[in-house]
């Protein structure tokens, strides 16, 4: 189905099932332990063996010797695979470094071997017996030091051009009534998902099946085939449940390749999970950024010049963190520029983490906006409202498909009690707490991608949906079922959803908050096909056929839906494919984030007291699972603001705090009352579903709202995340 004109009224608009706060249909499986994650696929093939990875312990250099003898002799060991005996391997298109390194080492904990044994314990013990000698080379590990060597990266689909310029930024900034020129930094961050990367691999002849934990099945299938030099038709990925990904599982990682190689070498199915420390240095992370923001404004507060430059680092051949992109779109201003620069760093490879680009970009931009509002003597909401735009500021002929950001501010301010905020900092004290409020805009683009599905009406009347779409904890199973139920006029209980299998039609996958809208639009398209098939078999005129309450109705006739399949199941398969609507209209999602914090007047500990997000993101397919997405993202935003930082050892080039004790993320006690409001929207430009994404919108801006609240509470402006107490303690009142 081609979607190239705005959606009109369609069966989804009935909102009998879609739009309802339905409990997730996979919930009972998860709460009872029956949902099988990759490493728990104990029954799918017999005779499973265990692989344990060995990681490099230098950041850069070469292996000069590797002694496998003791490990080979260890109890239970079946085989050891290294780059030397693995056969020819081609680096995947989505990987910057090789998934199996050696003799050249590209980063710390790059996998250099997998030990396969009868038991997990035997594999782990034998892996520890492998002795490796290295010739270590000097590397570049410090972004601040490498900043001046950063170069202009290539333009990319996701990242856009490295330089943008409209009007005369330099001239307008120089002559502006009020100016801000500040530098902000965000640290390297880890996805820190609960389920580590894990794969069970089994060969049957020349065919490989991987039960894995992956967000993007088709990407993974293609890269596995490419890496192993086998046909795509020989590879099957199965990933029905994913215990968190946040971008870390967009691409196949070492667990998948090591399991495949171990299985090939041992002739046994092999499962490999990355040990927790490897999830920090072996996989990808969100790269640190340095961001310079300049804003010039008139006396009344109109932005006349806005510039945003971002620096980040990656391994040679890698890509930048595109932190400047939202600044091209979010505020008005005739003169504007952005620049993205990329330095070479020999840390583990950087890549996407929840809202790549916007998450760190908004942490800086929205902090700068707060500073500028103060300079101008304006309320932060008033300043933002004054600079609202309804069109793409770089191309005023191109409107936003929908933009209710000001409404988000208005409703948020009212619900949060923003009028109680004191404009000057450090005015409110409650006992030991200095209390303050902060806000920030939230902004994340809505991305469109082809997505397919197959829907079958069985002889028993059950509707089965199959797509390679994944549910990474987001609620995909449920909204896919809701879509099919709405389209086919059946209750939710009559829908079976099967996801995450590369033998199903290729979907948009889960990433970039594009999963919900695109995957359900693909199911919509397939259901349209199935409805046509049903109508045809029943001899109905498909144009006026109604599917409701388990029946198919046309004119005076009414037939149970199941009857259409009585003589054999019917199938509809299709994809949603998009025309130019995303080019003619800018599609984005919007939020206003409000945060109240307390800063301990003695110790500078920061505790969030309450949070509110008001979101404008098109039709909300399931308010309950959407709310879960947003509160999860808000929690992650608090982590980014207050505690999350991969500590870089700049001498040896690795992330030191590589476990969940050292890399702190918020715990329950850190997260108080959270409220989420969704504006009642439907965006006809996005898809027949009229929906957009929320899972990344929820994090964009949260960190800055926390930072701005801390400033309002304490009077200390911290521009370097995370805002830990050591950065605040010097600015507190004298000790009692």
């Amino acid at each position: 189905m081609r979607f190239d004109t705005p959606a009109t009224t369609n069966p989804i608009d009935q909102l009998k099932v879609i739009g309802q706060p339905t409990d997730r249909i996979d919930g009972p499986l998860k709460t009872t332990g029956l949902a099988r994650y990759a490493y728990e696929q104990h029954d799918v093939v017999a005779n499973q063996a265990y692989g344990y990875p060995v990681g490099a312990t230098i950041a850069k250099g070469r292996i000069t010797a590797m002694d496998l003898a003791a490990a080979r002799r260890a109890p239970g060991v079946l085989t050891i695979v290294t780059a030397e005996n693995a056969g020819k391997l081609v680096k995947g298109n989505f990987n910057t470094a090789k998934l199996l390194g050696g003799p050249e080492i590209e980063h710390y904990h790059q996998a250099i071997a997998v030990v396969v044994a009868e038991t997990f314990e035997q594999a782990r013990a034998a892996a520890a017996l492998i002795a490796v000698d290295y010739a270590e080379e000097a590397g570049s590990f410090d972004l601040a030091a490498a900043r001046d060597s950063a170069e202009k990266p290539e333009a990319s689909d996701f990242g856009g051009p490295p330089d943008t310029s409209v009007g005369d930024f330099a001239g307008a900034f120089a002559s502006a009534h009020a100016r801000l020129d500040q530098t902000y930094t965000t640290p390297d961050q880890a996805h820190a998902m609960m389920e580590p990367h894990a794969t069970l691999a089994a060969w049957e002849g020349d065919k490989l099946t991987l039960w894995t934990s992956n967000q993007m099945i088709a990407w993974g299938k293609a890269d596995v085939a490419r890496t192993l030099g086998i046909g795509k038709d020989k590879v099957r990925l199965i990933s029905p449940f994913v215990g968190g990904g946040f971008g870390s599982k967009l691409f196949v990682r070492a667990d998948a390749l090591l399991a495949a190689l171990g299985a090939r070498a041992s002739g046994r199915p092999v499962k490999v999970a990355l040990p927790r420390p490897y999830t920090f240095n072996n996989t990808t992370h969100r790269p640190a950024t340095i961001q310079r923001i300049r804003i010039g404004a008139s006396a009344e507060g109109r932005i006349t010049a806005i510039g945003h430059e971002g620096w980040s680092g990656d391994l040679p051949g890698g890509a930048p963190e595109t932190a400047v992109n939202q600044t091209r779109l979010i505020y008005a201003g005739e003169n504007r520029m952005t620049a993205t620069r990329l330095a070479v760093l020999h840390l583990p490879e950087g890549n996407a983490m929840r809202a790549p680009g916007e998450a760190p970009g908004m942490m800086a931009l929205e902090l700068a906006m707060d500073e500028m509002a103060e300079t101008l003597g304006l309320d932060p909401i008033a300043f933002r409202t004054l600079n609202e735009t309804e069109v793409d500021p770089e191309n005023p002929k191109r409107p936003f498909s929908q933009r209710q950001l000001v409404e988000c501010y208005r409703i948020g301010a009212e619900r949060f009690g923003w009028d109680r905020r004191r404009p000057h900092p450090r005015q409110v004290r409650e006992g030991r707490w200095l209390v303050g409020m902060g806000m920030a805009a939230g902004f994340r683009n809505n991305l469109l991608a082809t997505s397919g599905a197959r829907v079958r009406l069985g002889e028993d009347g059950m509707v089965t949906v199959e797509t390679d779409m994944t549910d990474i904890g987001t609620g995909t199973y449920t909204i896919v079922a809701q879509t099919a139920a709405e389209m086919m006029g059946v209750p939710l209980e009559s829908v079976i959803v099967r996801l995450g299998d590369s033998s199903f039609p290729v979907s948009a996958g889960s990433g970039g908050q594009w999963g919900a809208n695109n995957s359900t639009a693909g199911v919509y398209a397939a259901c349209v096909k199935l409805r046509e098939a049903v109508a045809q078999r029943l001899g109905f005129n498909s144009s006026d056929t109604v599917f409701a309450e388990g029946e198919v109705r046309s004119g005076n006739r009414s037939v149970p839906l199941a009857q259409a399949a009585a003589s054999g199941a019917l199938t509809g398969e299709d994809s949603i494919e998009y025309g130019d609507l995303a080019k003619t209209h800018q599609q984005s999602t919007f939020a206003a984030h409000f945060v109240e914090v307390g800063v301990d007047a003695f110790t500078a500990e920061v505790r969030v007291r309450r949070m509110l997000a008001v979101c404008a993101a098109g039709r909300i397919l399931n308010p309950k699972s959407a709310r879960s997405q947003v509160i999860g993202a808000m929690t992650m935003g608090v982590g980014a603001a207050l505690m999350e930082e991969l500590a870089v050892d700049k001498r040896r080039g690795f992330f030191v705090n590589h476990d969940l004790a050292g890399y702190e993320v918020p715990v329950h006690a850190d997260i108080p009352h959270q409220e989420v409001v969704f504006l009642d929207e439907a965006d006809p430009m996005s898809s027949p579903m009229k929906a957009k994404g929320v899972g990344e919108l929820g994090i964009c801006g949260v960190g800055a709202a926390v930072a701005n609240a801390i400033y309002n509470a304490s009077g200390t402006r911290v521009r370097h995340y995370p805002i830990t107490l050591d950065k605040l303690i010097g600015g507190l009142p004298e000790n009692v």
Partner: protein
Amino acid sequence: MRSFTYERAASPAEAAAAAARQAKAKFIAGGTNLLDLMKLEIETPGHLIDVNGLNLDTIEPTPEGGLRIGALVRNTDLAADPRIRRDYGVLSRALLAGASGQLRNRATTAGNLLQRTRCPYFYDTAQPCNKRKPGSGCSAIGGFSRHLAVMGTSEACIATNPSDMAVAMRVLDAAIETVKPDGAARTIPIAEFHRLPGETPHVENALEQGELITAVTLPKPAGGRHIYRKVRDRASYAFALVSVAAVIGRHGEGRFAVGGIAPKPWRMQAAEAELPRGAKAASAALLAGAKTTHDNAFKLSLVERTLGAVLHEARG
């Protein structure tokens, strides 16, 4: 994890004797720290002696008016004991500030005293660490040291002791009762229990090979306000950047020990003498001679300010 042999001990003396027979023997009780370290091959005992069955899990009054806490009393039970809550509140509060409910259910009193540092370089077996591998060097000096020590360090090691419980026990003047492999018992004041690293950071306490902790005794209650204030980057389930255990009298006098800044709970009489003059004076005395890194220099003002918070609370 290396392979190991395992036995269940029948009595404290037998456990100690069994441990002395094998150089690479370790006791195991709750296992909340040791098992993690074994999986990472930071600890590689060849033999484990399970002491869980030794009936050292009661809290009894002592003739001196204090309490004897069995070595195997779980942290949860100790924190909840009505006598501890009434007379040694600082200890109950310190315990509840540590770890999680699940860990406290398993962790024992003796094991808590013996838990090892959380220095990240100690946890990465690829990195030099004098505590893990004597003579290999200290990666933390010049590395990421935000959580590490500012007092009592050496050129060989700047690790901290991560225990909350031990800080409270230090302020309470607890004593550690042990039995040696030859059956002899002794009592070690907590002030002398943990060792400073010097040139031998792998030697962390006064125990001899095979010596088994059987109990911790508390002297009779000291009165005063019992306060434990733990400061960390998140609200729960994190090790202290700085913690203060204090027992403060009516006029601001009293005692205090500080956690998170040294290889052992840090307490000095000279600092306590300054307490009535306030946090600034007391912390200056406590921290005289501090040796900081770029990452952890903030701990000096944090100690002063946390102590200030404690004194404020004591007055309130």
